């Protein structure tokens, strides 16, 4: 390659590189690619938006207002305790009353005739049945029998 040819080559090359490139107004590949990318972007954005919207619609919690609901007020343990307490009281009451009823059955005819005889019988009755009464009543019975205060029994 001589000097002239080399110069001609560089001149052509430089001229070509400095040339202003004019883009083509319509490039099918480019437009289609752009269109596809935008479509994919729109579809993805729409999908995401729909997904979040769906979840915002579907997922909700129902908060209940308790004001209209009547709670069950029955507490079995409390009722059982109360019932047991009343049963015990009733038994104690019936024991006291029953003993008095027994006494009256014996006392009534005897007292009319002789107070002393009637009292002795009453004391015997009490001593036989004190196992069901309270300690207080027993002590009272014992003291009354020992001190001779027997008319009340």
């Amino acid at each position, binding site marked *: 390659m001589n000097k002239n040819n080399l110069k001609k080559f560089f001149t052509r090359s430089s001229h070509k590189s400095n040339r202003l490139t004019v883009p083509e107004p319509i490039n099918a590949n480019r437009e289609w690619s752009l269109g596809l990318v935008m479509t994919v972007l729109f579809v993805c954005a729409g999908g995401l938006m729909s997904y979040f919207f769906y979840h915002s619609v579907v997922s909700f919690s129902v908060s209940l207002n308790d004001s209209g609901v009547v709670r069950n007020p029955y507490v079995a343990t409390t009722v059982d305790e109360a019932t047991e307490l*009343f049963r015990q009281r009733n038994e104690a009451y019936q024991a006291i*009353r029953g003993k008095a009823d027994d006494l009256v059955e014996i006392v009534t005819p005897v007292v009319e005739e002789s107070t002393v005889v009637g009292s002795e019988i009453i004391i015997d009755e009490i001593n036989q049945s004190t196992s069901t009464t309270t300690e207080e009543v027993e002590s009272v019975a014992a003291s009354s029998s020992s001190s001779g205060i027997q008319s*009340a029994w």
Partner: protein
Amino acid sequence: MTKKTVTTLSIATVYAFILCAIFLYAVVTVQSEKAEVISLRTTKAEQLQKEVSARTIANTVTLTEAVRKEMGSYFLTEKDTISFIADIEKLAAVIGVKIETTNLAMVAASSTPSSLQTGFSVQGSRPAVLRFMKALETLPYHNRLPKLTVERSAENLWQGQVEVVVTIMPTV
């Protein structure tokens, strides 16, 4: 732009607006439907809760019939007050004490159930008075004894004062 391009663009724009409008309408409709669904579900849940509660109470009422009957016997009703006093007087006669009713009043309050306030003056031997007091203490009724005094008034004669407040069960 050519005329065909403008026409196509216009039609595409109109379609886009129409689609956007449809989309917005759908969103608004879904939101309003969601509010209605929440309201209906809340109502349904409340009804369900009430139903469960009512069923539980109905079961409790059925199961506790015997207990309620028993507990009811431990409460005085308004019509039982006279027989209650008569019962106390009979108890006094059975035990062998003289009794005098010093107070008898029905107290009604808005916050608490009404109650029968009674007061008795008891006279008799010490064991009999104590026994009567013990009997009053163990009365099988919902009651309280705000005052109870026993003192000797004479030889072998004791005197007691007692106040008994019995709860009156309201009639349903």
